[in-house]
């Protein structure tokens, strides 16, 4: 911490002293580089943090600049009012450009945003209002008390202040609930939705943020150069900006800044050989994506882990703590209303003409542990996906606590008290274990992000409360020693446990576990049984899909058996195990059922 404060202080001194050591040309270059740094932070937030392929960032930059130019030269606004209006205009455009993200992602989004950026340059090169190909000159010098901002030296200080504030705010976003949710969405948007993140709102927020930074950079640029023309906002510069972010490290805002400054300066240094420079950064981008996808910012961590490997140090010596049972809920507090907690009625689901589920009905009472078993391909996970809102059923209804929840989005169900785990572990791989749990601990709605703009203290306070809650949950699951580790670096059994902790921290009424014992060893399975029982005793209803029949038989009061998308049996473990249809589904032969030893049946019933 002290080291960091020292570094920031040092950088501040350098920024303050820099103008004293530079000639006018170099100062100008530094000013432009800092504008690109602000722009790159915006792109980093959208692409690196939120995973939205935004190839219109240069257009946001252009909207900001052009709006200032047009408002000041055509409509006679002062610089600062024009700057404010430009920011608003950029954000409006940014949100409009971002709307396709609600429908398409990845390369589709890339091409749409790139197309809209081309449309923007097409407009400014042709519109009389924007001065056509020759652009707009004569933007007034921003007035600031008695300070003459036409000096590139003095303008530097304005830029440094804006840049520092912009970077600080960006880092603040990344490290608090909003940024965590965005990163979670980037790693796995499905799981993010399932733990309560409103994915559509977050995508818009990402574009909103990117456009704020674009607008800010545009205003700074207009005030600095006082002339705008279409060239500055061309695709060539978009790709240059992209290279800055990729080479610097898209997931780290500081990396984006470093990349932006480095490439801006390099471009100037090589301005006599600009094509070679372009060739060079193109090659570096290609090499970076193949060999160093985390960019410059990721190098220290890679070197460190490589060093450790060479020295033969294994993974951390951290040990898994014991699970501490949840406090049991008082018996009386259980009822949430009359009737079962989860009621699935006549649910059907078709995929391309094949019935994955056919009129499946089951009801699970509050406080029950229900097992769902069946051969491969019998529709168990499809059923979970329907209940948790990932699939829309072709027919039938689902009720949670008596209220119909059909057609609700996964995040809405999460807020209604449903949590789940996934068959193939869906942890957020670039978030630490603690952050994984923190994302799910956050029960707020995304519309509360206005606090970021006006009341940051409130955000910090809430974040602190979330951290306390998450740490308590990690401690409960014996995971405290791994809080700062990345999930992938952990043994499989621990990852499974992290996923359950993540599901439980949201305080669900109903927990769906999809094959929680897959890949666990005998001792881990025993601990899992203990955990699930304790979760139930704390008042949470559990539905569990599992292939480990020993676990299911010992854990569940009632078991529902699916085969070919239909319920073929339901009842207590012994009852189900003796049902000829079940044995036929599993062994292919009902005749083999006749000699089930009765002793075992009574053992299980206990």
């Amino acid at each position, binding site marked *: 911490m002290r080291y960091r404060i020292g570094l920031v202080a040092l950088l501040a001194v350098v920024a303050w002293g820099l103008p004293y050591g530079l000639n006018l040309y170099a100062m100008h270059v530094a000013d432009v580089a800092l504008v690109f740094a602000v722009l790159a932070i915006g792109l980093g937030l959208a692409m690196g943090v939120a995973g939205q392929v935004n190839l219109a960032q240069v257009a946001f930059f252009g909207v900001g600049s052009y709006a200032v130019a047009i408002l000041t030269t055509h409509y006679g606004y002062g610089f600062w009012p024009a700057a404010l209006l430009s920011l608003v205009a950029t954000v409006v455009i940014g949100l409009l450009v971002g709307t396709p993200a609600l429908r398409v992602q*990845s390369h589709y989004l890339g091409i749409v945003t790139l197309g809209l950026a*081309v449309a923007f340059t*097409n407009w400014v090169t*042709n519109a009389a209002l924007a001065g056509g190909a020759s652009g707009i000159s004569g933007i007034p010098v921003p007035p600031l008390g008695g300070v003459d901002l036409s000096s590139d030296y003095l303008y530097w200080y304005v830029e440094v202040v804006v840049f520092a504030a912009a970077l600080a705010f960006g880092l603040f976003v990344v490290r608090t609930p909003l940024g965590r949710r965005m990163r979670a969405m980037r790693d796995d948007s499905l799981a993010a939705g399932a733990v309560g993140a409103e994915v559509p709102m977050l995508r818009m927020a990402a574009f909103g943020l990117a456009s704020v930074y674009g607008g800010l950079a545009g205003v700074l640029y207009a005030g600095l150069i006082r002339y705008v023309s279409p060239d500055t906002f061309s695709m*060539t510069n978009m*790709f240059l900006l992209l290279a800055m972010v990729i080479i610097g490290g898209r997931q780290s805002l500081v990396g984006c800044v470093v990349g932006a400054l480095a490439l801006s300066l390099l471009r100037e240094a090589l301005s006599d050989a600009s094509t070679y420079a372009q*060739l060079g*950064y*193109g090659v570096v981008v*290609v090499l970076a994506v193949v060999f160093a996808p985390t960019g410059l910012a990721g190098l220290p961590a890679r070197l460190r882990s490589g060093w450790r490997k060479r020295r033969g140090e294994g993974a951390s010596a951290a040990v898994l703590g014991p699970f501490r049972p949840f406090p049991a809920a008082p018996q009386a507090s259980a009822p949430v209303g009359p009737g079962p907690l989860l009621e699935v009625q006549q649910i059907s689901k078709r995929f391309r003409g094949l019935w994955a589920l056919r009129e499946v009905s089951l009801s699970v009472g509050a406080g029950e542990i229900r097992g769902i078993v069946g051969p491969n391909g019998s529709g168990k996970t499809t059923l979970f996906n329907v209940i948790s809102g990932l699939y829309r059923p072709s027919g039938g209804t689902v009720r949670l606590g008596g209220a119909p929840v059909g057609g609700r989005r996964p995040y809405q169900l999460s807020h209604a008290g449903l949590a789940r785990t996934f068959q193939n572990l869906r942890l957020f791989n670039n978030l630490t274990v603690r952050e994984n749990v923190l994302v799910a601990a956050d029960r707020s709605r995304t519309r509360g992000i206005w606090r970021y703009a006006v009341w940051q203290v409130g955000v910090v306070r809430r974040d602190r409360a979330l951290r306390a809650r998450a740490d308590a949950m990690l401690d409960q699951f014996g995971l405290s020693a791994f809080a700062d580790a990345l999930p992938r670096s952990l043994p499989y059994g621990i990852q499974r446990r992290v996923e359950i902790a993540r599901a439980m921290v949201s305080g669900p009424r109903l927990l769906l576990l999809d094959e929680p014992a897959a890949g666990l060893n005998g001792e881990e399975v025993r601990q899992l049984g203990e955990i699930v029982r304790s979760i139930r005793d704390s008042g949470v209803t559990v539905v569990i899909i599992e292939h480990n029949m020993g676990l299911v038989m010992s854990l569940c009061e009632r078991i529902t058996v699916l085969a070919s998308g239909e319920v073929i049996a339901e009842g207590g473990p012994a009852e189900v195990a003796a049902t000829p249809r079940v044995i036929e589904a599993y062994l292919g032969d009902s005749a083999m059922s006749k000699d089930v030893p009765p002793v075992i049946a009574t053992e299980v019933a206990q």
Partner: protein
Amino acid sequence: MQVFFQTLIGGLSLGAVYALVAMGFSLVYRTMGLVNFAHGDVVMIGAYVASTFYMSAKLPFALAIVAAIVVTGLIGVIIERVLRPLENKDFDLMLIGTIGFGIVLEAVATLIWGATGRAVPSPVPAAPLDIFGIRVRTYNLVVLAIAALAMVALVLFLQRTKRGAAMQAVAMDYEAATAVGIHVGRSNALSFSIGAGLAALGGGLVGPLLYVNASMGGSLGIKGFAAAILGGFGSIPGAILGGLAIGVLDSFSAGHFQGYSDLVTFLVFTVIIMVRPTGVFGERTVNRA
């Protein structure tokens, strides 16, 4: 009426070029699930190589295009080979990697051919043909004919040959394809180079229609890509229809909105994608041949 038909024919021949570009996109996407953002720049390289062989080496136009196809095919193989470690892993990184290749190709083109660009003379007599009272540029018809031939050849290749079937099989299930003995990497490299070859054909043909310069790849690539999406990504007939649609849209919006044609084209495209992300002609369960 006269103007309408001339615009239509002009749009269709430009659209045929977009269709060739879109087919390249679709082929690579279908076999590798990869969107090659460098594709437009491969088209540009194709245009330059073809025009160089045609104008400087005085090769016949057709031979010049063949030479361009060979060169870009090699470029395609290189791109695929370099990015192969990312296949089936990180989609977004791969996409950015192809953008990186685009930057490189543009720089290479500027280094070799300079930044100013060149006009390519038409290989057929410039005098327009008169068909039923409508005057049509002869070269437009040549472009349409060659593009049509290329499309037929591609479809035949995919439907009739062992390699063509194998390429599609890899796209549908690479594990099962491996089990029947298909070398998945080699098959992907082939599809990448065929895609690049189509790009070169498009580039070579577009030379006499447009002005050839290092930054032409951007707009051609984006429009070709838009055509592929419009037609339903991965579908070859969709790519053809999408290409023709974008060409005609482009040509008419150039007629009506003059300089704003790109703006109009991309706004219309964005709206279509918002309404139908799977494309106009595409369907989720697309019959992929």
